[in-house]
């Protein structure tokens, strides 16, 4: 096969990655609650939680959202319309074949799972077909990962620091690069819906 000419940047998003830390559960509820049952994008979430504890996040969110919610497992393929949480104590990556992989490398920004790790690997796997959103939190994890998404041509959005319960995380991202969007949660949610309808049609 002959190499083909580079394609123009693809704006159709095929997956969404989300990062949140302190205050993140509530923020995620506001962002995701009531997504339509026809929702078609995979959503992958790193929420900082203590290591060595079983995470109840998948169950808690499964009860609230009307979407299939899982703890991401090693080599599990990402499925359309499903929501995934990183397991506690492991880094979560997305591979080129659009399956998850786990690893127990040392924590990044004191966090395992780390948002940077997920976002950077997702940027490699999806290139421009990825959207990343960073919400409330009290450390700097995620800033670099979000920048990598932007460098790969994807869409980046940050929760408005004025609205965030803890503004350090969104602020760190804004200090590092210019996200495509800085918005309060309700508008981030509108953006999500818009990205999805562009994907579905």
């Amino acid at each position, binding site marked *: 096969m002959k190499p083909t000419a580079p394609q123009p940047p693809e704006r159709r998003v095929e997956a969404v990655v989300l990062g949140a830390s302190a205050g993140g559960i509530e923020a995620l509820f506001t962002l995701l609650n009531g997504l339509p049952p026809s929702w078609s994008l995979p959503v992958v979430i790193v929420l900082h939680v203590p290591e060595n504890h079983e995470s109840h996040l998948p169950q808690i969110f499964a009860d609230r959202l009307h979407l299939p919610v899982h703890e991401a*497992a*090693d*080599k*599990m*393929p990402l499925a359309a319309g499903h929501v995934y949480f990183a*397991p506690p*104590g*492991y*880094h979560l*990556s*997305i*591979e*080129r074949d659009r*399956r998850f*992989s*786990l*690893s*127990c*490398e*040392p924590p990044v920004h004191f966090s395992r799972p780390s948002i940077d*790790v997920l976002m*950077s*690997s997702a940027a*490699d*796997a999806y290139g421009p077909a990825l959207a990343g959103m960073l919400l409330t939190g009290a450390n700097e994890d995620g800033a670099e990962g979000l920048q990598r998404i932007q460098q790969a041509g994807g869409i980046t959005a940050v929760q408005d620091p004025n609205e965030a319960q803890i503004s350090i995380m969104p602020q760190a991202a804004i200090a590092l690069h210019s996200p495509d969007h800085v918005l309060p949660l309700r508008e981030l949610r509108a953006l999500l819906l818009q990205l999805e309808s562009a994907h579905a049609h």
Partner: protein
Amino acid sequence: MSNTEIELRLLMEAIYLKYSYDFRNYTVASQKRRVLHALAQLGLPSISALQEKVLRDPALFGRLLQYLTIPVSEMFRDPAYFLALRQHVVPILHTYPSVKVWVAGCSTGEEVFSLAILLREEGLLSRTQIYATDINPASLEKARQGIFPIEAVRGYTANYQRAGGRSSFSDYYTAAYEAARFDPSLCADVIFADHSLATDSVFAETQLVSCRNVLIYFNRELQDRALGLFHESLCHRGFLGLGAKESIDFSSYSQRFDAHSQPERIYRKAT
């Protein structure tokens, strides 16, 4: 494919051709992170520059190996796993006149010492042969010595208790300065050996294989190879223990093992 990925593949090919270490079927995301981290630590500008040096300098390859393998471990890591072994596997191991256990990817030995302590408390150690294997010679050497930082060992005490420990953890080591030296008799019947799940074959029939937090670094093809080795090594109805977040669900061996203790990831060879 990005330039970084091309360089990464070429590096792994070079390492394979030169040193016979086969990292070609490892998951790319974490391999890339580790190589970029090594570049920063070694002060090299690019993966190609690293490749050039690695080919000519075995000592540098030895250093790179410390980054490529992830020598992270803990004693009684995930205590529920060890508790499940104690409660649900040991009673069946007792029915064999002698027992062989394979700890694959044993790293610096924490898992081996944990198992040895458990087997001694359950009255099995004296008739058990443990094979502890890894590809990292520096880690194997540490494992042989059985000396761990005292700070870490203090933390392991809680793990040990949650794993159903029957004694006082401090009975098993002597503390000196910053280190804890574990009772060498625990490892009298342990064979530490270099063995790669990517290139080597089966060497013994075993009743239990414990391979924790190793398969996650492999792609599906290599996971299948490793699981094939375990399947071949295990006796009829033998046990396989994986890491807390590992499963065989996405491998072609999913039907060839039965779940034994599900949340603790202990499987049993299917008939």
